[in-house]
């Protein structure tokens, strides 16, 4: 675990550096949208890592409720925290991209609505832990929120889709005609996704280590008095 953490940091650093060169110097500029389209190589990987993080939260929460082993709770909590950061950045980069291209910061289509609600649910997940009277209850309650949230996500997507299709005048929608990406662009996107997954894994291991230290400290403090 510790060696993985130490090895991941330089790997993530090198990959982020290469990724930035690819995005800002190497990949050709998209012709229709212009320079702003380069945010795409950050936005998509951020959103995907955000979703991966939330699947981890739900999975680890379910195992925690069944096994009651705090290790799974540490994983769920750390993934939740890093996931909220990734998702926040994905929403911000998305808005920055949408404004020049669509003319608005935000549209209520199914993908954006689902992303937004998912983000709110997991902010609630972190709030439950913070407000719980004891740590043990906070863990159980947060796990319940994580699981119910994950079950709800497909329904939220369907609801947002129904809402949009039955209110057709509101549709601006994302660039629906996904023309096949040029190979340099596809390569950059692929590399960027890998970079963000490595970065996410590194941040997750760091957060896990910190969490373990926090819990060890709390246990020592409890022993003192």
């Amino acid at each position, binding site marked *: 675990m510790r060696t993985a953490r130490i090895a991941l940091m330089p790997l993530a650093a090198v990959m982020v550096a290469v990724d930035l060169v690819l995005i800002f110097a190497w990949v050709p500029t998209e012709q229709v949208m212009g320079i702003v389209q380069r945010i795409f190589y950050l936005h998509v990987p951020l959103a995907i890592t955000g979703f991966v993080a939330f699947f981890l939260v739900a999975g680890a929460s379910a195992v925690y*409720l069944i096994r009651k082993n705090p290790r799974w709770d540490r994983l769920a909590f750390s993934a939740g925290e890093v996931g909220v950061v990734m998702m926040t950045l994905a929403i911000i980069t998305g808005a920055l991209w949408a404004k020049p291209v669509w003319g608005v910061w935000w549209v209520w289509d199914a993908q954006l609505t689902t992303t937004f*609600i998912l983000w*709110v*649910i997991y*902010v*609630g997940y972190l*709030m*439950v832990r913070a*407000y*719980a*009277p004891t740590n043990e*209850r906070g863990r*159980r*309650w947060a*796990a*319940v*929120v994580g*699981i*119910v*949230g994950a*079950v*709800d996500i497909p*329904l*939220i997507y*369907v*609801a*947002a889709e*129904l*809402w949009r299709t*039955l209110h057709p005048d509101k549709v601006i929608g994302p660039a629906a005609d996904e023309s096949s990406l040029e190979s340099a662009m596809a390569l950059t996107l692929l590399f960027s996704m890998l970079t963000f997954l490595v970065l996410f894994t590194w941040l997750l291991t760091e957060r896990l280590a910190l969490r373990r230290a926090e819990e060890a400290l709390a246990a020592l403090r409890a022993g003192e008095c």
Partner: protein
Amino acid sequence: MRQSLRAAWAIYRKDLRVELRTRETVGSVLVFAVVTAFIFNFAFDPSPQVLGLVAPGIVWVAYVFTGMLGLNRTFQLERDRGTLELLLLAPAGREAIYWGKLGGALTVMLVVEALMAPVFLFLYDLSLFSPLLAATAVLATVGFGAVGTLFAAIAVHTRSREVLLPVLFLPLAMPVIVGAVGATTALLGGGGLAQVNPWFQLMAAFDLATLMVCSWAFEHVLEE
């Protein structure tokens, strides 16, 4: 199974009896609903044309907010009198508590919603009396109750329960709110069963999924 059902029924009857004797929840929640409906008049200034657009929103925002108020109270009384611990000692599964409490909350919410229908008629000349609208209200309210009972049990033990319940409840209840508003829009616009069918399916799917997951998860919320 049968024992569990009997325990749930007993809890439901207890909650109903407490409510019938005090009439506290229905009374206070109903006043809140009337005040909410009244405030919308100044938010939208609904002339007959505007009303056609905003009426479903007015009705459902009022119902959702009053529903949350009612849900907050389902466990508050137990907590204030320290009877929740006694309920946990009862020889019945935790699931029985969930179903009993859910029944109590649903009854209160549906009674308040029914009593609000004439108020909407009076204030906005809005007629909500139709079997399909009643079905919409039942489907939506079951969804609110399924999620809300679970989160009310969590929120009641926290320092900031007034904030935590809406923060958890509103995003998760979004599909059923969308379904209720969609169905109401279709029905008030003169639509029939064919127009509301997709919304009914959405709400029914939500009700089933959340009832299953929340009744299972409830056990982990109250565990001591």
